[in-house]
């Protein structure tokens, strides 16, 4: 049985009596952790993790206008559900005018407060939010394959925008001459072939304890972590180039190793793991220069790998855009 994640619901209400009524009713909603605030002016919204999934603001005409706060909530957590309870007439029209310009409010309820109607609406929306959050978590789970203990920490508590430095071996793969293949075989046929090739690569990356970060059109970006990461990455690249799929659909592979920034990007509605840094850029450039059937790795990777390829390996020095000096590399042909 799948357990849906819990969502944060904030009640902001300067009236103690109505706040307690809302708290009593909404505490009954399943899958919610409910927090109450007497005034939005006391709330600090630094990051998405601090923001609510659902904000319920009971606005009084004598309160300070909440427009800046509502905009801030949507800026920090664009997919949060913002519900405002306002007085009918001019206050309601003011909220609608503001919403026309800024689209920060998802629903406006008029006073007097109908607790059943409000509770029913929130209950339905919260079920959808929880399902969406579960889908996002499953999406991350599918991507991660076999992350190391260190990376598992990032995945188990996704904190969008927070980056960590890791020593990683970065590998890019890319199908050579894909444009010609599309023209020759039809786009539909090529798409099916691309799926087979990438699935085969992903299986090998998992076998060699790497992690697919993302697909990149005609290839993949993968990372390897840990003491023998260069060894495993080069063995993996070797296995990819020796595979049946690579024989029929040639690929080029670029590999680099060093510190990269890793983290989760996006919002609670769409999260993905990514890596950035000069070594990611370098591996991508090496991949673009690798000919069909070739692994182009930095000499640093080859040295650290301590792996006898028993294939043709040619040292080279390659000028890479963005790097001041030529990068010592090794061409490995299978």
């Amino acid at each position: 049985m799948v357990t849906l994640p819990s969502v944060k619901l904030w009640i902001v209400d300067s009236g103690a009596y109505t706040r307690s009524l809302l708290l009593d009713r909404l505490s009954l909603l399943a899958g919610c952790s409910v927090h109450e605030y007497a005034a939005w002016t006391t709330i600090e919204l630094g990051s998405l993790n601090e923001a609510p999934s659902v904000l319920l603001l009971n606005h009084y005409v004598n309160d300070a206008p909440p427009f800046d706060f509502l905009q801030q909530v949507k800026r920090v957590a664009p997919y949060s559900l913002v519900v405002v309870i306002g007085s009918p007439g001019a206050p309601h029209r003011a909220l609608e005018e503001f919403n026309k310009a800024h689209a920060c409010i998802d629903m406006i309820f008029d006073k007097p407060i109908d607790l059943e109607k409000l509770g029913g609406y929130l209950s339905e929306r919260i079920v959808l939010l929880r399902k969406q959050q579960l889908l996002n978590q499953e999406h991350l789970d599918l991507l991660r394959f076999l992350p190391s203990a260190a990376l598992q920490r990032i995945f188990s508590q996704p904190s969008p925008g927070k980056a960590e430095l890791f020593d990683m071996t970065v590998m890019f793969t890319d199908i050579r001459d894909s444009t010609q293949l599309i023209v020759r075989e039809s786009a539909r046929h090529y798409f099916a072939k691309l799926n087979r090739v990438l699935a085969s690569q992903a299986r090998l990356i998992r076998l060699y304890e790497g992690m697919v970060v993302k697909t990149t059109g005609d290839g993949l970006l993968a990372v390897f972590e840990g003491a023998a990461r260069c060894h495993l990455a080069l063995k993996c690249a070797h296995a990819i180039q020796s595979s049946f799929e690579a024989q029929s659909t040639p690929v080029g592979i670029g590999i680099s190793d060093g510190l990269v920034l890793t983290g989760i990007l996006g919002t609670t509605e769409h999260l993905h793991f990514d890596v950035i840094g000069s070594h990611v850029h370098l591996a991508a450039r090496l991949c673009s220069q690798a000919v069909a059937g070739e692994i182009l790795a930095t000499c640093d990777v080859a040295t650290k790998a301590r792996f006898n390829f028993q294939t043709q390996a040619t040292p080279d020095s390659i000028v890479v855009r963005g790097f001041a000096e030529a990068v010592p590399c090794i061409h490995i042909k299978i």
Partner: protein
Amino acid sequence: MDSQFSDQQLSHIIDQSLIYQCACPAQVAKHLIGLRDLYEYQQNCINQTATDKVVHERIAADAQRAHAALEECLREVLMIEQWDMATLTMPASLQKTPRSF
């Protein structure tokens, strides 16, 4: 750095863990590769000051000690699991469960 196992032998041990579920000796082998890299890095790191030299020597010496301890650990583990020490082949009894992907 003195060693009981060559790079190729470590690689061979890791290869077998990639096929079968018994990955513990391979875990040790991977850390040995890491320690060899660490030792070499310290050997080749630039000494700009006297302190740099002391730091690099200290790390290299401890990497060497850790390497010797883990190599001995690997040797004993392989013997406990009854690997063929000449070919470094995993015994058939441990090869029963191919890794699933």
